[in-house]
C-alpha cells in the first residue's frame, strides 16, 4: 500500500523528532558520558601503549612530565632563586624562636637525585635538586635545623627509585616508614625528644602487598606507559592506642588502623577512575595515648600521608596542616600559639621550592608562613 504524501512527511518528521529526543536524552541523562568512558579509557591505554612502542618519552613535556628509558615517570622543575622560600622560612623561624617553639625542616626527595641525568637523554635541564641544595644551604647557614633525606638515601645505600611509585609522584608506604624514623631521629637530635627509634624497626610491622593494582596520578595524565604499581599496606605489629580528633573537634578512640581507609583499595576494571591508593593513609590530628610527651604541628604536603601516621607512633600529639588547602582566613601563627605546640616540623617534597613561580601550580601557598 502506498503512503499518502502527508503521511510520508509525518512519518519522517516523527522519525526526526524521535532521533533528536533520543540524542537529547543520551546527552542529558549522562548516558553519553558513561558509554564513552569505558571505550575512552581503553583508548587512553592504547595511546600509552603506542607511545611506549615508538618510545615517545616527552609528549607531555608542556606539563614537565617525561618517562625515562625504563618507563619511570619524572617531572622537571624550573630554576628558582629560593629568595621567597628562604625569607618566609627565616621569618617563621624567628616567630617560633620568640615563642620558644622548635623548628625542624625536612626535605623530601623527588623521584631523582641527579638533575643532570636528563640533559643527554631529554635535552632538558631540571633544577629540582639544585634548588633544594641552594635553599637548604641558605636556611642551614641561618641556623635552621634541617634534615635532607637525600643524604640518608646515600648513607643507607638506597636507590631513590625504590622509594617511589612508577606512575605516581608520591613515595611508597615503605618510604614513609623509612623517612619517619629519620624524622623521629631529627626530633631527638634537634628538638629534645627522646623517641625510642626501635619502634621503627621493619620487623615490628605487618605487611600486606597487592601486585599491579593501581595507576598513579602521572600515569592517569599520560596513559599507562608502564605497568601498574604495586601497593603495600604497613601496620605496626605492636599495640597502639590513639585518640583521633576530627575537624569539628569531636574525638574518637582507636588504633593505628584508623589511619587507613580501606575504601581506597578498589580493584575495579578501570584503574583510571579508581581512587589513588596513596591517599588510603589519611592525615588526621591525633593523640598517641602510649606516649607521654611531645606536641608537634606538621606543616605537610601530600607525601606526609605516609609519614604522619608513623611519626605519630613516637610523639604524644600531632596536628597536620597543608597550607595550600587551608581556608583563606586561616591564621597560622595564631593557630600555633593557641594550640601550644612545642615543635613545628615542615616536611616538604623538594618540588615545593619554587612552586610559587609556576602559574599552573596548586602549591603557591606552601611557603606562605606569614599568615
Amino acid at each position: 500500500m502506498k503512503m499518502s504524501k502527508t503521511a510520508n512527511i509525518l512519518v519522517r518528521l516523527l522519525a526526526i523528532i524521535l532521533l533528536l529526543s533520543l540524542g537529547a536524552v543520551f546527552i542529558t541523562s549522562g548516558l553519553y558520558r558513561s558509554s564513552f568512558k569505558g571505550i575512552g579509557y581503553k583508548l587512553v591505554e592504547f595511546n600509552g601503549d603506542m607511545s611506549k612502542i615508538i618510545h615517545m618519552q616527552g609528549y607531555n613535556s608542556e606539563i614537565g612530565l617525561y618517562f625515562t628509558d625504563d618507563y619511570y615517570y619524572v617531572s622537571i622543575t624550573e630554576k628558582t632563586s629560593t629568595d621567597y622560600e628562604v625569607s618566609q622560612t627565616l621569618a617563621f623561624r624567628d616567630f617560633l624562636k620568640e615563642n620558644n617553639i622548635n623548628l625542624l625542616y625536612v626535605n623530601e626527595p623527588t623521584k631523582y637525585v641527579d638533575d643532570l641525568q636528563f640533559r643527554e637523554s631529554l635535552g632538558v635541564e631540571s633544577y629540582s635538586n639544585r634548588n633544594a641544595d641552594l635553599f637548604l644551604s641558605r636556611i642551614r647557614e641561618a641556623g635552621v635545623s634541617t634534615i635532607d633525606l637525600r643524604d640518608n638515601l646515600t648513607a643507607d645505600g638506597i636507590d631513590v627509585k625504590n622509594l617511589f611509585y612508577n606512575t605516581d609522584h608520591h613515595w611508597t608506604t615503605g618510604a614513609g616508614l623509612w623517612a619517619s624514623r629519620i624524622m623521629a631521629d631529627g626530633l631527638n637530635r634537634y628538638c629534645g625528644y627522646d623517641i625510642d627509634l626501635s619502634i621503627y624497626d621493619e620487623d615490628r610491622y605487618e605487611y600486606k602487598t597487592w601486585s599491579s593494582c593501581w595507576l598513579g596520578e602521572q600515569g592517569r595524565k599520560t596513559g599507562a606507559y608502564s605497568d601498574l604499581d604495586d601497593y603495600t599496606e604497613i601496620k605496626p605489629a605492636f599495640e597502639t592506642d590513639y585518640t583521633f580528633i576530627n575537624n569539628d573537634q569531636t574525638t574518637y578512640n582507636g588504633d593505628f588502623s584508623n589511619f587507613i581507609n580501606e575504601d581506597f583499595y578498589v580493584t575495579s576494571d578501570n584503574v583510571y577512575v579508581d581512587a589513588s591508593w596513596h591517599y588510603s593513609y589519611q592525615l588526621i590530628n591525633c593523640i598517641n595515648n602510649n606516649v607521654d610527651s611531645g606536641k608537634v604541628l606538621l606543616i605537610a604536603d601530600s607525601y606526609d600521608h605516609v609519614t604522619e601516621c608513623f611519626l605519630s607512633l613516637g610523639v604524644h600529639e600531632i596536628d597536620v596542616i597543608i597550607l595550600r588547602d587551608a581556608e583563606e582566613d586561616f591564621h597560622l601563627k595564631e593557630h600555633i600559639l593557641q594550640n601550644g605546640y612545642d615543635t613545628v616540623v615542615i616536611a616538604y617534597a623538594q618540588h615545593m621550592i619554587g612552586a610559587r613561580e609556576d602559574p599552573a601550580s596548586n602549591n603557591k601557598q606552601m611557603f606562605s608562613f606569614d599568615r
Partner: protein
Amino acid sequence: MTTIPFIFLFLPLSLAIYYIAGQKAKEYALLAISLAFYSMFSLEYIALFVIEIILTVTIGRLINRNKNSSSGKALLITGIVLNVVLLAFYKYFNSIMGLFASGDEIPSIALPLGISFFTFKAISYLTDVYKGTAELSANPVHDALYLSFFPQVQAGPITRYSGLSRFDRINSKVIIDGFFRFLIGFCKKVLISNVLSKITIEVFSAPLESFSVSYAWIGSICFSLQLLFDFAGYSDMAIGISQMFGYHCMENFDYPYMTESVSRFWRRWHISLSQWFRDYIYIPMGGSRTKNKWRVYFNLLVVWVLTGIWHGSTWNFVIWGLGYFAAISFERLTGLPDRFKHKWAKFIYRILSLLFINLLWVLFNSDNIGSGLGFIKRMFVCPHNELADLRTLFFIRNYGIFILAAVILCFPLVPFLEKKLKDKKAALIVFKAASAVIIIFSFIWSLSFVMAGLNNPFAYGNF
C-alpha cells in the same frame, strides 16, 4: 570538528536526520543542522550569524531583481560594506583597543566563529549575483545554506555559490569515500599537526637566547608541516563531510610543498583563498591585463597587503604578505624559474622557494616583526648552545616518526602508486585494502590522542 561529541553524536545524528528528511526538506534540515553546529561552538554569536545571513540573502535577492540598474550596484556596495565592516570590527577591535586604551583592563571581544570565511563567501555571493555568474536557486534557503554550511563555516574552503551542488547520484560509494576523506583529514590534524605543534609551541615560545641553529631549524620546519596538516586536514574533513551529505566541495590543497616556485605555491596552498583574491580583488583592479606595465605590480601589492591583513592585524602579517609580493614580483619580472634550462637549476630554485616560504612562515607565527626576524637570524647565525642541540636530538628521537610521516605525505605518494597499479587489478585491491586498514588504524590512534585530552583546536579557525 575533532571533538568526540561532534564525531560520535552530532555527525551521525545529523546524517540520520538529513537522510530521513524528504527530498524537499533536506536543505531545510541541513540549514537547521548548520545553525545548531554554529550554536554549539559560538552560541554568543548565533543571533549575529543569523542576522548576517538574512541580510546578505535579502540583499542578494534584491540585487538579482535589479541586476542592471544603479540600485543593483548600490545594493552590492551596501552588502559588501556591511560584511566588511562587521569583519573589520570583530577582527581588529582588540588590536585597535590595545593601541589606544590604557590601564589594566583593555576591552576585548571574542572572534565570531568563521567570520572571515563567512565574509568572503558573502562577498563572493553578492558579487556573483550582481555579475550574473551565479544563478540563484528558487528557494532562498539554498542561499542561506551556502553561507552557513557547517563543514565549511569554520575555515572554508571558500566555495562559490555555484559550487554548492549535489552529486547527481548519491550512493554508498559517495558516502563511504566522503567518510574516508573525513578520517584522513582527522588523522592529518590530530596525529600529525597536533603532535608537531608540541615542538613548535615549545620552540616559538622559548627565549631567543636559548636557541641553537638546529633548534631554530627544527622549529621552523615543523611549523611549516604543522600548518599544512592542520589546514589541509580541516579541508579534507570539510570535503569529506560535505560529500557524506551528498554535496561537492572544492579542493583547497594540492601538495603545496611540491611547488616549483613561490608564485605556484599559492596555486597549491589555500586554493580557494587565492582564487577569491584573484577573482574579487586582482582581476577587478585590472589584473595582469593592464596597459601600464607597473600597474600589475600595484595590483599585486594590494592583493598581498590585503592577504597579510586578513591573516592578522599585527605588522608581521603585513611584512609576511609583502614578502610574497616581493617574491612573486621577482618571479614575474625575471621569468624564473621557467627560464632555467637545466634540471638542477630548477631543482635548486625549488629548494630556495621552499626555504623562502619556510622563513615567511616563521614571521607568520611570531608575535611581532622583531621576534620573527630574531628567529630567522638564529636559523643562520647563533651562538653555540649544547642544551638546545640536545633538545633538537630529543625532538627527532621523540617525534621522528611523525616528522617523517609528515614529510612523506607532502609528496603525492598515494596517487602515484594508484596510477602505477592502475592496470594491475589484484595489486590495486590489495593496495586499497591496505590503505583502508592504515587509515582506520591511524583514526583509532588519533582518537586515542583526543581521548587522552591532547587535542588542539584548528589553527586556521583563528583567521
